[in-house]
């Protein structure tokens, strides 16, 4: 296995008039979790589909496990596991049968496929439901089964396309645990997500993707440091109060103070931690600004996204990742 399990250089893809990818470069170190973070329609799924040999790039090259995704498709496929946005399992078959079938299609012998199916059902806490048709499963159970199916052949590289989209918070936490254990085993995981929290929690490296291109890359910590440090956020009781608050807080600002008159919020970059918060309260009090809310915020990936793209991660939600055939 090469040092980088996944390498992509200048991937481009166009669907009719839509430029889905305009030169995506990625390098994913072996045995690490890498998150492709971006809103719907950013090109995350298209990138995964190209890397998983489901789609051909118009331009650029990519290798997975050292194999060329365009020229060595069979080798790539024998090397990867894919779990998509939907539970890609047969509703009429039981959990056990679904996993066995996938094992057989990975060309495992029947006893081996069976054994592996039982192992995975146990690991994903599906043993009790193993002999029930999948149509009786809950959403979370289906997704677990789908992930299990991706792991049947113990693939060194696993693609997880939005593994927790649509899951309730409890199932999401369970999924995160599973993904963490996966990596403990030495697998390379490329996951796509719209949830900044998810990337932050799981990934060693994050590529922020927007409108078909990677706009930033690095560890969650590196990305956070790009937006600068902490900030004090103040919401004033009236819209008119916001500029006054901004004025008052200039004294403790470590950079430009941002005012959002619509939301009546003021954001002040600071350095002193909770000390700055107390200073801010004092300054606001002294200038008689009516404050509805005040807090010290440490940067999140949300802030990274906002500062990199100029729009919030959720903004382009309706565009949809759906692409024509």
């Amino acid at each position, binding site marked *: 296995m090469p040092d980088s399990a996944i390498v992509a250089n200048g991937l481009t893809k166009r669907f009719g008039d839509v430029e889905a990818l305009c030169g995506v470069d990625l390098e994913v170190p072996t045995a690490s979790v890498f998150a492709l973070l971006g809103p719907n329609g950013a090109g995350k799924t298209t990138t995964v589909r190209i890397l998983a040999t489901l*789609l051909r790039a118009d331009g650029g090259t990519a290798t997975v496990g050292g194999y060329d995704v365009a020229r060595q498709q069979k*080798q790539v496929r024998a090397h990867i596991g894919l779990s998509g946005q939907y539970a890609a399992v047969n509703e009429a078959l039981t959990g056990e049968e679904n996993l066995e079938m996938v094992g057989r*299609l990975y060309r495992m012998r029947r006893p081996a496929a069976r054994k592996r199916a039982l192992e995975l059902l146990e690991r994903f806490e599906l043993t009790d439901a193993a002999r029930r048709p999948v149509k009786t499963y809950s959403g979370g159970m289906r997704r677990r089964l789908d992930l299990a199916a991706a792991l049947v052949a113990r693939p060194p590289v696993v693609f997880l396309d939005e593994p927790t989209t649509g899951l309730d918070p409890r199932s999401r936490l369970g999924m995160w645990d599973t993904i963490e254990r996966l990596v403990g085993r030495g697998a390379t995981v490329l996951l796509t997500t719209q949830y900044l929290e998810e990337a932050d929690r799981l990934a060693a490296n994050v590529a922020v993707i927007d409108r078909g291109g990677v706009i930033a890359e690095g560890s969650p910590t590196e990305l956070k440091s790009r937006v600068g440090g902490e900030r004090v956020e103040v919401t004033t009781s009236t819209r008119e109060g916001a500029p006054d608050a901004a004025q008052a807080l200039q004294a403790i600002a470590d950079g430009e103070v941002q005012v959002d008159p619509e939301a009546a919020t003021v954001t002040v970059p600071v350095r002193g931690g909770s000390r700055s918060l107390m200073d801010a309260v004092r300054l606001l009090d002294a200038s008689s600004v009516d404050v509805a809310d005040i807090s010290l915020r440490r940067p999140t990936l949300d802030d990274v996204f906002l500062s990199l793209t100029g729009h919030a991660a959720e903004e382009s939600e309706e565009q949809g990742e759906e692409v024509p055939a």
Partner: protein
Amino acid sequence: MSAASGSLRSRTYWALSDAWVVTKYNLIAVPRVPELLVFLTIQPILFVVLFRYVFGGAIDTPGLSYVNFLIPGIIVQTVAFGGITTGIGLAEDLQKGVIDRLRSLPMARFALLAGRTVADIARNMFSIVLMVLVGIIVGFSFQDTDVAKVVAGVLLLLLFGFAFSWIAALIGLSVPNAEVAQSAGFIWLFPLTFASSAFVPVDSMPDWLQAFAEVNPVTVTVNAVRELWLGAPAGNDILWSVLWSLGLIAIFAPLATLRYRRTSRA
């Protein structure tokens, strides 16, 4: 995973093994899908009984009793419709991402379609036996025939059904969802199966329709089965039926496979 590459022999072995795996799990699923069970059992029984008793007295079929005339016709119609399960199944798989999952496996590309269409053969076999049995209960009997000819008739029917499964496969892979696959799969089969010799003698139709019905693959297959099972002379229709089926397979199997390879959906 040593099978990723290899000799032609091992590739062929694995391709067949993959197709068999898909077939097997498709068949396992059949008894668990109520809609499919109804489609496979109750519908054919209803058709045999209804057509037998509703039209039986009104339609004049020289040389054959209506029930004998009807059974080959209605079985051909049923196997022609049988492929729709493949079409709907593929459309569903596409929608739900099952096809993406399968396309990301190191399995043979043609195995999914082959497995589905071969599963249709097994289902059609079931329908044929069931309809013959129900037919016998309502008065059908084989005439001027022997076991070899009866079996030849069954094989002809299965080949015909297999050809229609590939058409349905192409439709299923080309439409946006299972509902459309269902209606698109059904709609053209009604004129095709009714404007044929399946239910009424072709010479009772207006001239323009006769011209169509004469060359209709449904007609030639129905006539061929009538010859094999009932000794009703059908000229070269056995040969024509085989040629039609092989021709349809030769066109639609590659088209469906190509469509499958190119398929990509979110």
